[in-house]
């Protein structure tokens, strides 16, 4: 059965890049896409995906806050953070909060797959 993925990033191009990588690999279903932390939280509650890829810098509610809220709702949630190169502090905070793994932009397909598979225990 395909693993259900929620993609969250305010940049549609990044969502499309990750989607292309997952679709090409096979075995994943993109259940929804969100552009803000608030959307991520709402979509998570509604869809309960197997995994979330979450950008950090987003308008309205950032990825760190969204991660916190998602983990409050579901402590077993699997969230892979997607971040630009300079966000080391935010990234460490996300890992401390319970993010499963992270991907640094710009990324290679292999790194995306390795983070997703590791997070899903594949």
């Amino acid at each position, binding site marked *: 059965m395909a693993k259900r993925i929620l993609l969250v990033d305010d940049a549609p*191009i990044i969502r*499309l*890049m990750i989607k292309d990588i997952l679709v090409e690999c096979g075995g994943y279903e993109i259940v929804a896409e969100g552009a803000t932390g608030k959307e991520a939280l709402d979509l998570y509650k509604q869809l309960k995906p197997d995994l979330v890829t979450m950008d950090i*810098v987003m308008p309205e509610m950032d990825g760190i806050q969204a991660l916190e809220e998602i983990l409050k709702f579901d402590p077993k949630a699997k969230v892979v953070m997607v971040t*630009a*190169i300079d966000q080391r502090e935010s990234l460490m905070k996300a890992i401390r909060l319970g993010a499963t793994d992270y991907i640094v932009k710009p990324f290679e397909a292999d790194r995306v797959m390795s983070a997703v598979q590791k997070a899903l225990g594949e």
Partner: protein
Amino acid sequence: MADQEIDRALKLVANLSIDKASQVLSKMIKAGAKIELEGVSLEDVTKATERVMQSDTGDVVGAFVDLVGDLPFKFLFYVDANDSLTLTDLILRRELGTTKKFDVYVTSTVQELGNILASAVTNVFASDFQIKMKPTPPIVVHDYASTIFGEYIMEAAAEQDEILMIESMFRVVRLNVKCRMFLLPKGDAQKELAAIVGKI
């Protein structure tokens, strides 16, 4: 410290920043990108605007990013409007020419390039000079280069007649895609930057 030495130190900061930006851009578009430092200069606001108007006459797609933290800067990245279609194809690993019109992915490409390049710059400031800065979400604009540049320097121009500008030009190897990147210190950041680089 003599002005010449400060100038040399500023160029070092600028070169480190654009080297990092060049690496991330090449990785993102999967093509060699060479970024050249055009200059670090204290320039008259009017002359700087005229120079940009003369060198970039067409419409461009750009991303403004505010870098906030210890040393606030304004960052601007822009690319010729037609070349933004090529960059979109490169990023999406599509055959060149696939993207024919401005859509959400073209805007998003410039937005993300602005974000990643600005992040590369703040990374250099943080790792090499212990100056903590972070980028805010980019604002994408599509207009004439002179209009965008005018908006970019408006705040600085209201405060001073001369601005310190770090300017660089990117060339994507073999494709003749040209982009520009600017860094402009905000408020007292110019003095603080000079003081910091004076200690290098």
